[in-house]
Every structure is written in structure tokens, then in C-alpha cells.
């Protein structure tokens, strides 16, 4: 074997091993940082006092938590399913939204701050809806979409000057960061990640799977 062949094969081998290693690490570290797959995560980490609830069940029996990134396509894709689920279950389900902006999405962090700035004026749910319904318009743009978000705030009838101030307020950024930190503690690797009554849902592929999981929790 020539030196060229040896080096080439060695390099290919190293890359394959590195990729296998990364995949394994990725698999294992998914649900594991706190505990094994499907194990319960401390409810205090998943739902904080100030976490945003899109619906609240008075009996507190079933709580669904979503860690999301407003710019991620997969989150945009599950948004209509979530909307339907909220319509169906209404006050039998507590649904909590946590921010988990992913750094490679250029406007994800800004979008999370926009949602938080709207929350400061009591309009989180509305901004959540507008951001997802218009994801295609502002998502995957290289430039900051600040003006687009301000326009959404205006449409929602928010105090625009206050919204702009809050958008740049370090406290708002810190609020988003603390959600993300909770997500990391809970073992969130990507978005969307759902927790049903403290357990990460790993086998959810369709809306029907989600409904089945919720029904099972309600029946328990």
C-alpha cells in the first residue's frame, strides 16, 4: 500500500469514527443529563412561576411543556397541531411555552425577546401566534428583523415605544436565557422538545401520537 493510500484510508476511518462518536454522544446526552430516557424532570425546572401558559388546567393534572424556537421550521410545523390540541382540550390541559432559541437561527433570539417584550404588556399568546403564522416571512433572513417584529407589535395594539425599549432590555434577554438554561438542565437538545407531566416525549411523530399521549395522561 502506498503512503497516499494509507493516509487516505486513515483519514476516512478517523472521520467515520468521529461521526459515529458524535452521533453516540448526541443520542446519549439527549434525555440523559438529568436522567434516563423518559425519566421525570424536576417540575420546578420545566415550569417556573413566570413561565408563559397558553392554557391552564385548574386541576393541574396534565401539563405539557414545549421548548421552542420561533424560527425553527419543525416548531412552525407543529404549531397548527398545538393550536388544534389547545382548542380541543381547553382547560383540561396546561400548556407551557419555554424559549429555546437556537444560535444558528439568525433571528431566533430576537424573536424570543419580541415574544417576551409582548409578554411584558400581557400579550404573549398573541405574539406567539403572529410569529408562527408569519414564520415564512421573517424566518431565515440574514438581517435582524427588528422592524418586522415592531410592526407585529403595532398590529397587536401594543405600546410600540415600550416594546422597542423592552426588546433591548437586558432583563428581557436574561429572561429568554434563563428559559434556555432550564431547557439545557432538562436535557433539551433541539426544538421542539415536549415534556408531558415532566417526562420528555421522544416517540411523538404525529398529532395523533401527541393526542394519544395526552389522553393517556388524562386517563391515569
Amino acid at each position, binding site marked *: 500500500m502506498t*503512503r497516499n493510500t494509507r493516509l487516505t484510508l486513515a483519514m476516512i476511518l478517523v472521520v467515520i469514527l468521529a461521526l459515529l462518536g458524535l452521533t453516540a454522544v448526541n443520542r446519549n446526552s439527549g434525555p440523559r443529563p438529568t436522567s434516563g430516557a423518559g425519566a421525570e424532570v424536576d417540575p420546578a425546572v420545566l415550569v417556573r412561576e413566570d413561565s408563559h401558559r397558553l392554557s391552564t388546567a385548574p386541576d393541574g393534572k396534565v401539563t405539557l411543556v414545549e421548548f421552542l424556537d420561533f424560527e425553527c421550521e419543525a416548531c412552525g410545523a407543529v404549531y397548527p397541531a398545538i393550536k388544534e390540541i389547545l382548542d380541543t382540550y381547553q382547560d383540561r390541559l396546561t400548556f407551557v411555552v419555554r424559549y429555546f432559541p437556537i444560535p444558528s437561527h439568525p433571528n431566533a433570539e430576537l424573536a424570543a425577546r419580541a415574544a417576551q417584550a409582548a409578554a411584558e404588556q400581557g400579550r404573549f399568546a398573541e405574539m406567539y401566534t403572529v410569529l408562527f403564522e408569519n414564520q415564512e416571512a421573517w424566518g431565515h433572513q440574514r438581517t435582524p428583523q427588528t422592524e418586522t417584529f415592531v410592526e407585529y407589535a403595532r398590529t397587536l395594539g401594543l405600546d410600540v415605544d415600550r416594546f422597542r425599549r423592552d426588546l433591548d432590555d437586558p432583563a428581557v434577554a436574561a429572561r429568554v436565557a434563563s428559559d434556555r438554561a432550564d431547557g439545557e438542565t432538562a436535557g433539551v437538545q433541539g426544538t421542539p422538545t415536549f415534556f408531558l407531566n415532566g417526562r420528555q416525549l421522544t416517540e411523538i411523530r404525529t398529532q395523533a401520537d401527541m393526542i394519544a399521549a395526552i389522553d393517556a395522561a388524562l386517563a391515569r
Partner: protein
Amino acid sequence: MTATAERRGDTTAPAGFLARVTAWVLALGGGVGLLAAGTLTVEKINLLADADYVPTCSINPILSCGSVMTTPQAAAFGIPNPLLGIAGFAVVTTLGVLLLGGVRLPRWAWLGLQAGATFGVVFVHWLIYQSLYVISALCPYCMVVWVVTIAIFLYTTLRNLRELPSSSPLSRLAGLAGYHSVILVAWYVVILLAILVRFWDYWSTLG
């Protein structure tokens, strides 16, 4: 010129071997590139005929030709890129097949191929950059073109470097020919890593 002698001695691939590999890379690489460019052209025509047409290579939000083919970058010189590919890869395939048949190409043909392959490889890297960091989607047929264009450029360049007179400063690079496949694989690995890093969040959400 002992250094030159050593370098030549280091060059583990004999000239004949490299010439044969180059001929095969041109013939097969050109052929595969031609197929990919042809497929992209057909998909483009289907897309033009029916705006709702979903190209065969639109697999998920990241692996998607549809979103890539409709960008301005897909017609960088005013005509669709695949048309450039059909013309270019047809020539490369022809030259490769002739070489396999034992034809000795004149110097100007090699220089012309070098010019074309250099243009191609620069263009392809601009497209890689656009695809990863501006469009944020990968088009599988386009990636086939990236792969073959890099191989065609590398082997054409290595072959031409060896033909340079030893007085030329660039002839010092001829020793690289001994590591032809190392360079090729390293080149692919860099691009693979860039793709993995860029879309890591997406790959890991699939996991």
C-alpha cells in the same frame, strides 16, 4: 537539484498511474456531473411548467432543491447554472473518454481544461457558501456537482503541475500528486464538517 530528486522519489504514484486516474476521473466525473446537471435542468423545466411541482430531491427543509433552484444564485450568470453544467461536463466527459482511449491531448487542450476546471471549482465554492450560509438549504443534485467538480479540478491540476518544466516555481507543487487522494478526501471532509456544523441543530433534532 537533490531536493527535486527526493520529491520525485517521494511521489509514490507513478506518472502512468496518475494519468490513468485522471482520465477515469474526467470520464466518470464528467458523466456523473452531466447526469446531475441534466436532471436539474429537467426539474427546473418541470418547476417552470407547474409552480406547485415538488422536485424529486426536496426531501426535508434542509435537503431541498426546490428552495435552492428558485433563488437568484441558481442563475448566477443570467442563465440557469445547470445549462453551464451540461456544456462543461459534456466537454470534460469527451476529453476523459478520449484519454481512456489512449489519445494524447495537445497542451492547449489541457490548458483549456485547466481554465474551465478552475472556473468551475471557484464557482462551485461560491455556490457552497451561498447554499450553506445564505440560502440555508442543500440541494442533493447540486452536491453531486460539488463532488465531481472538485475531483475534476484536483486531478487536472495535479496532472498539469507534473508537466511543468522544473524551472517553473509551481513545479515544486508537483510532489502533491503523490498525495492525490489524501488531498481529495481532506477537501471533502472540510466541506462535510462545514455542513455538519452549519446544520447541527437540525440534524440533532432528527435524532
